[in-house]
């Protein structure tokens, strides 16, 4: 909204110009702390005339960009500007306003004003020109009345007072000023606030309300701070994470941070389950049906035996309303409700709590995924890979000597590779080379998919075998056979993939990693899909008169335990033993690399198992939490003792986006589909669990709605919602259509933004050329002036000498 300043190019002809000491840095507004250094630099720069160093156009391809830099080249090929030009250049807006304190103050003044305008203040655009400049022009930097720094500060303080406490703090924290200045700004805006409130104190009720509101806001602010510090105290492992980050860098740290995130998700899932299902049922335990077998150690592995009749599994939960306040009537009359009882409909509670817990998890996952994606994706980001490597690849968290040197080696290797790649791209690649590359790629993919298919068939065949030969009660350890086979396949196939991947050569190392993750993920998800079919499709039929839900819950328990054991074994053999072997036998100093992709996929697999099993074993998240806690310490110890950081530097933020997306899409989505199918389509067993009398689990909700319909007109809106919005398919179509429209609009907006970015980039480039052109013109004007001045001075000198010569001649 600022007016363009009137630009009058005034070329002064006063002789004082030449008398002043040349100093392009002669500005009082330059940051005071570097004054000494700048004085030295200015003398150096004035001597060499290096004010604006052109990129010397090269004779080869790089220089033929056609930008046509017309530089006034001095004798050494470097632009040689006069001192007057240098002085004018020194007072260019981009230099003085540069990053001095005054500029920062005015910039933040503008931001504060914009923030205040957004928060329900009257529009000031209609205010006439005679009003204060701070209201009229929101851009102090281009104001023709150049404000002094002190005035800018006063304006900023006044604006800060208009903000709320939270906004002011947010603004102060983000300012690039020193802490002492921020504190004085804060103090000033605080004091003024106090002064303003002073005279209002005599207005009675009005001031009382505003003071009360202010006090409430302050109390809330302090409460928020206390909660935040409490939460931060609760976050465990702060020192351990610091140690890991310091020794191994951000990429290995991202694995441990992901583990912490998974812990949070499991805790979020467990809380409603504990509160509404397990806790309530434990308070009203059902009558024990049959004899409970004694505890033997095998239960910890198989999950059966004495565990089957505990709160661990689905079968424990009753299908009636608990705590029914109804004493049995003596003469067959109505139930008289006892005092102090709250009926608790267990089937309904089970269904709703599961649904709500999953819904909350879904919302949290989608939110954190979109937040992470928003941080790591940029519209129109072209490859600025060299600049990013130079400026953003040094990890400041690394704090020890050897890891620091390792990081320097990594960056050096990366830069060398980038240069080599660039030089390679200069030369053309043969068609045969590319064809061969594609053929090898296709072959390796075919082999990997074939291996996956083979593993899947093996699991299917083994599961059919397990159905055909049922396991008797004495040989429960045979139940461990299927989980063992699955875990062995999950362990062996990735090593095979790694061997096959050694055959192909990728252009970028990141692509290699993504392809490896993809293949491993396909394997794990397909095996889990086969197992789901086995449970819901075949086991339900095979276990007709038994509690099949308990069986499925136990299967998932066994899978989790086996997975944990195999992870420990893998850590032991893959890391510890490998390091010992490579040190003793092979006499190499190299420790094994910490394989981030494989470890993260293991975590995602474990979490998928938890989500699959939570419907049939509500305490499974608790087990997962214990497992994750244990895993953290084991992995950390193994890492510190046996491993080194990966050679390839990882883009840590991309990785965490990828991890969370993988957690959401194949993992959580698959579990949600499994859950929906189990609730909607499968008939629950008739002898155990909260849904034993119903056709599907979902019917519990329908039964309740019908019960509500009979209850009377006061709650008729709920059945109405159920009939017209949930059972009817039209609202679902409507919502999907709206969602698709929103997605399409967002895609169009992104396309438009990309175009705008291209245009703006061109504009910046053009402005740069204009600037150079104008500087050269300025320089030529001053050169001419200089020459004419020298010429005049020379003429003025010659008459006396001529006279002297004439006198001598006479």
């Amino acid at each position, binding site marked *: 909204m600022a007016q363009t300043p009137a630009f009058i190019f005034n070329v002064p002809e006063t002789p004082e110009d030449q008398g002043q000491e040349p100093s392009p840095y002669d500005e009082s507004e330059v940051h005071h702390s570097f004054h000494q250094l700048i004085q030295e630099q200015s003398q150096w720069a004035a001597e060499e005339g290096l004010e604006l160093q052109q990129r010397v156009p090269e004779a080869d391809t790089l220089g033929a960009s056609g930008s046509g830099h017309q530089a006034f080249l001095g004798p050494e090929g470097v632009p040689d500007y006069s001192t007057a030009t240098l002085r004018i250049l020194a007072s260019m807006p981009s230099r003085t306003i540069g990053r001095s304190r005054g500029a920062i103050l005015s910039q933040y003044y503008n931001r504060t004003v914009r923030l205040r305008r957004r928060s329900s203040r009257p529009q000031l655009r209609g205010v006439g020109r005679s009003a204060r400049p701070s209201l009229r022009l929101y851009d102090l930097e281009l104001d023709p009345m150049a404000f002094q720094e002190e005035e800018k500060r006063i304006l900023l303080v006044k604006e800060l007072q208009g903000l709320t406490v939270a906004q002011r*703090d947010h603004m102060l924290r983000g300012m690039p000023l020193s*802490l002492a200045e921020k504190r004085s700004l804060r103090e000033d805006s605080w004091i003024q606030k106090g002064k303003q409130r002073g005279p209002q104190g005599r207005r009675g009720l009005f001031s009382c309300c505003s003071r009360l509101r202010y006090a409430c806001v302050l109390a809330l602010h302090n409460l928020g701070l206390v909660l*935040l510090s409490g939460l931060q105290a609760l976050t465990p492992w702060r020192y351990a994470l*610091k140690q890991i980050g310091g020794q191994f860098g951000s990429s290995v740290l991202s694995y441990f941070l992901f583990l912490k995130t998974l812990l949070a998700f499991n805790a979020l899932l467990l809380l409603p389950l504990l509160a509404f299902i397990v806790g309530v049922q434990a308070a009203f335990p059902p009558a024990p049906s049959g004899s409970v077998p004694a505890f033997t150690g095998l239960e910890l592995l198989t999950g059966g035996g004495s565990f089957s009749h505990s709160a661990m599994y689905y079968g424990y939960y009753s299908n009636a309303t608990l705590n029914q306040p109804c004493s049995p009537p003596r003469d067959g009359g109505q139930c008289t409700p006892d005092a102090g009882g709250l009926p608790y409909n267990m089937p309904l509670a089970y269904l709703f709590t599961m649904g709500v817990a999953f819904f909350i998890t879904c919302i949290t996952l989608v939110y954190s995924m979109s937040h992470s994606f928003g941080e790591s994706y940029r519209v129109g980001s*072209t490859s600025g890979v060299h*600049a990013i490597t130079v400026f953003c690849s040094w990890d400041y*968290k690394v704090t020890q000597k050897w890891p620091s040197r390792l990081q320097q080696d990594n960056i050096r290797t990366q830069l060398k590779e980038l240069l080599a790649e660039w030089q390679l791209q200069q030369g053309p690649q043969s068609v045969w080379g590319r064809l061969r590359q594609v053929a090898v790629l296709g072959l390796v993919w075919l082999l990997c998919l074939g291996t996956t298919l083979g593993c899947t068939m093996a699991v299917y065949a083994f599961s059919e075998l397990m159905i055909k030969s049922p396991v008797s009660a004495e040989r429960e350890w045979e139940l461990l056979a299927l989980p063992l086979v699955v875990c062995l396949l999950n362990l062996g196939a990735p090593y095979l993939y790694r061997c096959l991947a050694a055959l192909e050569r990728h252009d970028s190392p990141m692509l290699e990693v993504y392809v490896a993750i993809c293949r491993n993920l396909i394997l794990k998800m397909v095996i889990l899909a086969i197992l789901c079919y086995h449970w819901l499709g075949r086991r339900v039929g095979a276990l007709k008169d038994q509690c099949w839900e308990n069986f499925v819950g136990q299967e998932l328990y066994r899978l989790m335990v086996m997975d944990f054991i195999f992870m420990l074994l893998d850590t032991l053999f893959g890391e510890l033993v490998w390091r010992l072997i490579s040190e003793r036998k092979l006499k190499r100093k190299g420790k094994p690399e910490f394989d981030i992709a494989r470890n993260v996929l293991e975590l995602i697999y474990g979490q998928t198992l938890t989500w699959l099993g939570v419907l049939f074993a509500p305490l499974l998240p608790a087990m997962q939490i214990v497992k994750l806690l244990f895993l953290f310490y084991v992995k950390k110890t193994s890492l510190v003792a046996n491993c080194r950081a990966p050679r390839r530097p990882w883009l840590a933020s991309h990785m965490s986006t990828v991890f969370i997306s993988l957690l959401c899409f194949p993992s959580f989505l698959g579990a949600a589909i499994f859950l929906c199918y189990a609730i909607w389509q499968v008939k629950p067993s008739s002898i155990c669990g909260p849904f034993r009398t119903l056709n599907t689990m979902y019917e519990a909700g329908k039964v309740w709605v019908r019960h509500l319909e009979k209850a009377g007109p006061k709650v008729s809106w709920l059945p109405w919602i159920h009939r017209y919005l949930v059972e009817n398919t039209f609202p679902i179509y409507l919502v999907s259509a709206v969602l698709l429209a929103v997605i399409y609009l967002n895609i169009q907006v992104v396309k438009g933004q990309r175009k705008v970015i291209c245009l703006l980039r061109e504009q910046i480039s053009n402005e740069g050329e204009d600037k150079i052109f104008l500087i050269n013109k300025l320089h030529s004007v001053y050169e001419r002036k200089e020459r004419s001045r020298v010429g005049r001075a020379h003429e003025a000198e010659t008459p006396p000498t001529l006279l002297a010569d004439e006198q001598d001649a006479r």
Partner: protein
Amino acid sequence: MGNKQTVFTQEQLEAYQDCTFFTRKEIMRLFYRYQDLAPQLVPLDYTSCPNVKVPYELIGSMPELKDNPFRQRIVQVFSEDGDGHMTLDNFLDMFSVMSEMAPRDLKAYYAFKIYDFNDDNYICAWDLEQTVTRLTRGELSAEEVSLVCEKVLDEADGDHDGRLTLEDFQNMILRAPDFLSTFHIRI
């Protein structure tokens, strides 16, 4: 949760809390770290705002900064007079900006100042050469270093004047989502 500390007044602590990204507890922890660097120099009572500066040699020997090739620049940028000697305010400011809660713009501003070795508000080719040399411990040849600097200027310089302004730098940082996680010191 009681206010048992006697180092700062209540107002001072609140001011620190409002102006940095740290909570009360973290500020006290940082103070004790600062005090540990020079126990004879730093008093245990800051209520009277003493003017105490810890010399650069002690700050540069902190484990978090000891092995960082840019530690001299970092400390210079945040110190009061640009000479590397830091007051408590400077110390808190430095770790607040380098903490994980600082926004991207603020970090980009200070990163620009750190990489601007000759303090002329531009990152010119000489600054880039210094940065690359320190990043690689001097093990790239001069030709490779200049080639890298050239490519960086190609990619990031918007108006093609041979050096990067703060806006160019911020624009480039926006394309690098890792910046927030790498420009981060845990304390």
